[in-house]
């Protein structure tokens, strides 16, 4: 526990505090990039492909260029650059071939949005439509068209394994123990396949950026980005510019959820600005563009085969994950990698064989989304645990408790779980207790009789570690002002998650200052803030929290050194409170922080010290790369464990259901701010319910996205809340967490869907394998009809399941009835 303190000693950490940026947000004063305008600013629009896959025969921009007020028009052929996070596979604008519906083929910058739109309409594009590969399982077939024939020639980060000549930009593998021996020793073998479609993040602020490329290659970028340093790094990599030429500024961001983690509109706007003579160029995606020009969450097909011993212990698991990257690898290859060390869940499994494929298709591409793959694979895993328990005749809670990780367990990558790793069993018990798991209360029985509907209760566990490089680092700078207030500079962006408030509480606690003397910057600027890798992965609290503590300590050390000279004492004899530094046993010998803040001047004018500026640097410690063949290594900064309990009420006649209660428990190590933890927990849970109940991309058989709007892609409203919500914190201190804390930004979204699926199964017997769980899916499952595939619809229909003709025969579990 970095800087562990007994709860009774803590004045700010663990207590309620208002959000540091709350007033600006409730008054409408907070500025987002979408609100910004710069002098001479132009407006950009893009011409988008109406086809999933097509060859670009000809683009004629002459009419657009002739339109008054058009200042720049660009097509892909002009831009000899490649973009990519991990596999450098993307052009700024499609060149010879478009790879997904909605991909940009030309860009325009004009005086007004109206002129830019008119110009886009005047651009003529002639396409030769090519057969598209839409289904990721079909993309694996030998005769499938190649989405990227040049995959073998692309640059990539070496922890990934692109398979040249295929549609597989990454294959991550893990081998632990002897899986065949484990199956041979098993009493039961249960095998199933679980699926879910692509979904959209839906931040309320769509992607927006303003870029100006000025003379001398000075580039300024204002962006709704989660990770300003990543935008800068990738931008400079693509354009071969020195990092000190490019400045990225991020003010308030209207939600991110992973969708704004990488680089998006910035390179195109930069090229338009350069062509338009350096004027700033702004573009804000429409809601429709947010669905198909910008990335989504990958679809997944997850095959799980589990061997279970006579006593109910899991002996072996064969896990195969097929991730649908869409047209570009972006974060999908790293989601795949994260799944390769996490997809067995928080369970102790001695023998594991895991293969995780990233697969290109001709669809909008997948990126990071809150949970980074865990929402998707936990759907399958925790439904599977339920089905296993049913098969072996054990209660699902008992079955999970028997198999959970505990101190001394070895994870599938070979990490030993310790007393400080967090407590999945305690989370599961808390969630189970909160829903009165395993029985119906008299009130619930009465409700069943009154309504004629069935009530079921389900549980699901979850875990997640930050998916990040082993050497992920950050820094904090704490600067004292002449009145004793301080400014904390960190590059962790405030996208709504409450990090700025948590950091202010941590800094004030460490400095022993009241909270209102600490300001954490909201606007981030790569020229001013110290380095941070990215605002992703729920890693902010540990990395930036520790750096902030260390920066506070550094500032205090400098203050103590000056104070020691002024007070004629050794630094070791000094102590401090909010006002100043004093001699421990002579409290009247004191010097105030304002007197020390920018150096101390003696009465005769002599001066010592200087401005108090503390620097804290923190890098993840002890992590290692994973072996490419066996997946063994130490990938996890920390594991946050959790569990959800769901009570659902189902109408067995119609399949309609209602969520009555969700109880969620997370081992957060140490609560920094209870209201913020609760806000993350509830907000993530509702986002998880959206994924569980209704959200998903629907395509027609040609790969056109049919539902890129709020009319056709519903997200939860206030009417979709469960009747009751309970949020529970477990606090098993993290050894290297600030005050013992660990991250919980993503975790609440994970495993909501399987907990709901398990509750519905308990109520109805419906064996649900596909997420989202629509009412008709429940009805079909209750009536044991073949699940309908309308995600790539065929009526007008097409999506995420394989061609029924080639779908591998129904799971061949010998033990199943």
């Amino acid at each position, binding site marked *: 526990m970095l800087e562990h303190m007994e709860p009774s000693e803590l004045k700010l950490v663990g207590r309620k505090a*208002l*959000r540091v*940026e709350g*007033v*600006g*947000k*409730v*008054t*409408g*004063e*907070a500025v*987002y990039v*979408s609100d910004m*305008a710069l002098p001479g600013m132009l407006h950009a629009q893009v011409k988008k492909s109406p086809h999933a896959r097509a060859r670009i025969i000809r683009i004629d921009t002459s009419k657009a260029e002739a339109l008054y007020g058009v200042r720049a028009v660009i097509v892909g052929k002009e831009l000899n650059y490649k973009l990519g996070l991990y596999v450098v596979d993307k052009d700024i604008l499609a060149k010879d071939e478009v790879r997904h519906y909605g991909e940009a083929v030309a860009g325009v910058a004009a005086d007004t949005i109206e002129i830019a739109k008119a110009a886009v309409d005047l651009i003529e594009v002639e396409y030769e439509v090519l057969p598209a590969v839409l289904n990721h399982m079909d993309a694996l077939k030998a005769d499938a068209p190649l989405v990227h024939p040049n995959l073998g020639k692309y640059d990539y980060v070496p922890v990934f394994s692109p398979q040249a000549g295929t549609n597989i930009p990454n294959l991550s593998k893990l081998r632990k123990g002897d899986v065949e021996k484990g199956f041979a020793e098993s009493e039961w073998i249960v095998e199933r396949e679980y699926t879910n479609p692509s979904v959209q*993040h*839906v*931040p*309320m*602020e*769509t992607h927006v950026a303003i870029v100006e490329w000025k003379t001398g290659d000075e580039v300024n970028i204002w962006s709704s980005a989660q990770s300003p340093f990543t935008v800068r790094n990738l931008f400079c990599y693509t354009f071969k510019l020195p990092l000190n030429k490019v400045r990225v500024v991020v003010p308030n961001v*209207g*939600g*991110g*959820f992973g969708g704004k983690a990488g680089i998006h509109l910035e390179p195109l706007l930069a090229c338009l600005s350069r062509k338009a003579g350096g004027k700033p160029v702004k573009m*804000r995606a429409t*809601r429709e563009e947010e669905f198909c020009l910008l990335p989504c969450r990958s679809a997944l097909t997850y095959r799980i085969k589990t061997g279970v011993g006579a006593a109910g212990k899991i002996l072996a698991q064969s896990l195969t994950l097929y991730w649908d990257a869409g047209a570009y690898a972006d974060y999908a290859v790293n989601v795949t990698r994260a799944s390769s060390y996490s997809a067995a869940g928080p369970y102790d499994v001695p023998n594991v064989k895991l293969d995780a494929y990233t697969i290109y298709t001709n669809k909008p591409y997948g990126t990071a989304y809150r949970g980074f793959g865990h929402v998707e694979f936990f759907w399958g895993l925790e439904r599977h645990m339920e089905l296993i328990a049913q098969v072996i005749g054990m209660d699902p809670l008992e079955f999970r408790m028997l198999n959970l990780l505990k101190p001394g367990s070895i994870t599938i990558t070979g990490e030993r779980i310790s007393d400080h790793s967090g407590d999945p069993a*305690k*989370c599961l*018990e808390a969630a189970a207790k909160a829903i009165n798991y395993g029985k119906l209360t008299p009130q619930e029985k009465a409700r069943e009789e009154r309504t004629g509907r069935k009530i079921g209760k389900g549980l699901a566990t979850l875990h997640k570690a930050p998916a990040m490089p082993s050497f992920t680092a950050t820094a904090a700078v704490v600067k004292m002002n002449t009145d004793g207030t301080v400014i904390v500079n960190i590059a962790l962006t405030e996208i*709504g*998650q*409450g990090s700025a408030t948590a950091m202010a509480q941590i800094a004030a606690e460490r400095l022993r200052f009241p909270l209102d003397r600490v300001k954490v910057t909201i606007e981030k600027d790569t020229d001013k803030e110290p380095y941070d890798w990215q605002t992703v992965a729920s890693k902010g609290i540990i990395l930036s929290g520790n750096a902030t503590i260390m920066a506070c300590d550094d500032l205090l050390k400098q203050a103590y050194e000056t104070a020691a000279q002024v007070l004629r004492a050794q630094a070791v004899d000094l102590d401090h409170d909010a006002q100043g530094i004093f001699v421990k046993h002579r409290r009247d010998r004191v010097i105030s922080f304002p007197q020390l803040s920018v150096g101390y001047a003696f009465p005769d004018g002599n001066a010592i010290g200087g401005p108090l500026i503390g620097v804290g640097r923190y890098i993840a410690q002890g992590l290692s790369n994973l072996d490419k063949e066996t997946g063994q290594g130490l990938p996890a900064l920390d594991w946050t464990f959790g569990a959800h309990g769901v009570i659902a009420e189902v109408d067995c006649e119609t399949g309609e259901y209602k969520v009555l209660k969700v109880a969620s428990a997370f081992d957060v190590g140490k*609560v920094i701010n*209870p*209201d913020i*933890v*609760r*806000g993350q927990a*509830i*907000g*993530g*849970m*509702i*986002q998880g319910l959206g994924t569980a109940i209704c959200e998903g991309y629907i395509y027609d058989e040609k790969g056109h996205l049919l539902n890129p*709007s*709020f*009319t056709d892609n519903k*997200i*939860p*409203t*206030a*009417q979709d*809340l469960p009747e009751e*919500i*309970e*949020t*529970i*914190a*477990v*606090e098993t201190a993290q050894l290297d967490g600030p005050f013992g804390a660990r991250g919980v930004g993503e975790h609440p979204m994970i495993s909501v869907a399987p907990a709901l699926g398990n509750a519905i199964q308990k109520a109805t017997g419906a064996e649900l394998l596909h997420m989202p769980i629509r009412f008709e899916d429940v009805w079909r499952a209750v009536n044991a009809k073949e699940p309908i595939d309308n995600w790539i619809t065929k009526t007008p229909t097409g999506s995420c399941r394989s061609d029924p003709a080639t779908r591998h025969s129904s799971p061949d579990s010998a033990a199943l009835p």
Partner: protein
Amino acid sequence: MRVKLSVNGSVYEREVEEHFTLLRFLREELGFTGAKEGCGAGECGACTVFLDGKTVNSCMVLAVEADGSEVETIEGQALNGSLSDIQAAFDRHHAVQCGYCTGGMVLSVKELLKRIPKPTVPQIKEGIEGNFCRCTGYQQIIEAVLDVSGQAESAGKGELKHA
């Protein structure tokens, strides 16, 4: 066309293009950027403002339609540097995360409380169902509304529990 209207009690008169929505007019011509565009299709409520005493999605109203009207935006809620009671309750209950939906949400709550001074939870849910929030999960917003409508006892149940 020439449009004259009042926003938060001050009169503005501008030449405006006929196709400009009230939302664009407020944001781009008058600088009231507290109203946001989340969809441009009247679905998400981020652009909610009062038009002659009733809330509207300002992305679905033309600026010329608002000629002669009284408009009230989120910027008009805090007076003399003090938050309105609804704003203060939102702040106190952490009914805000990214903040992008917040302005519209606060105004929808104001409209609800004008109609129903002590709304039940189902009435609150109905009152804000036209305002999407992707961050908070709505629960802390509901608690803020209960609190500001004098039903703090019901709001007080919303605490993080410890196992």
